[in-house]
């Protein structure tokens, strides 16, 4: 199952070339991921159990202009390790593919400032969103 996030493009996301700056795509991916994590993955009773980005790729296929309608970010899980999971993304305006991306997320204990094993609860959620 893919997770879809509707992402607004703000006017000040654009750079002097008149399109969304390349770095903003990472913000859009992050907004999609955070929305997913807070709705489905994060355990409210364990706020220290979070994840950090270990590795990221972004392929820029078309420039993103200013758009008044949100762009769609589809996100799904491509792999689950002991203390990491992998996400893939497709960013679209309507049927037009704008960008694709991957992130490797490392499960992280914020209080202990170190990586941690994924919990069974997280694994069950990640399995539901496997692509």
């Amino acid at each position, binding site marked *: 199952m893919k997770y879809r996030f509707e992402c607004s493009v703000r006017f000040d996301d654009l750079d002097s070339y008149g399109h969304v700056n390349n770095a903003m795509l990472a913000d859009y991916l992050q907004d999609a991921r955070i929305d997913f994590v807070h709705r489905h993955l994060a355990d409210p009773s364990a706020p220290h159990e979070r994840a950090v*980005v270990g590795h990221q790729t972004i392929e820029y296929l078309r420039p993103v202009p200013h758009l008044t309608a949100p762009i769609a970010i589809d996100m799904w899980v491509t792999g689950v390790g002991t203390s990491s999971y992998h996400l893939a993304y497709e960013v679209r305006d309507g049927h037009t593919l704008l960008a694709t991306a991957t992130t490797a997320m490392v499960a992280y204990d914020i209080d202990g400032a170190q990586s941690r094993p994924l919990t069974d609860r997280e694994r069950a959620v990640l399995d539901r969103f496997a692509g």
Partner: protein
Amino acid sequence: MARHVSQVPLRWSDIDSYGHVNNTVYLRYMQEARVDLLYVHAPSCGAEGFARGMVVRRHEISYRAPIRYVAGVDRPEPIRVETWVTAIRAASFDLGYEILAIGPGGDRQVYAVASSTLVPYDFDAGRPRRIGPGERAMLSDYVELDGPTPSLQGALA
């Protein structure tokens, strides 16, 4: 061959609620270094055209260590971004980057290793353009083929 060195100041707003520089900001540090190399430095080395237009085709980045910013305790020096060239094609080229700090003893604390594919772009014509001879010569001065590359290794467990 030499690497290009940029010193990029940190901003308080680079920090997220985890107390470290947010992953997206690393791409902005790379961008500052790239603009410094291609738009500020390159025109004085016979490569004027890059500043007229460039788009990013791809980024890859491995995050190796968090960058922290604790006001009043250890306010950081500007972050050091080293940039070099790993490939030059007809109408695109690749850069490598290390984002790091150099300690008092000369030790290198590497926060991230990254790469980008860049395409010189003619915005008036709305299409990519070929790399000119002056630009190729300038890029050639920064070629390093055996530098570190981003990879999934280390992010996996």
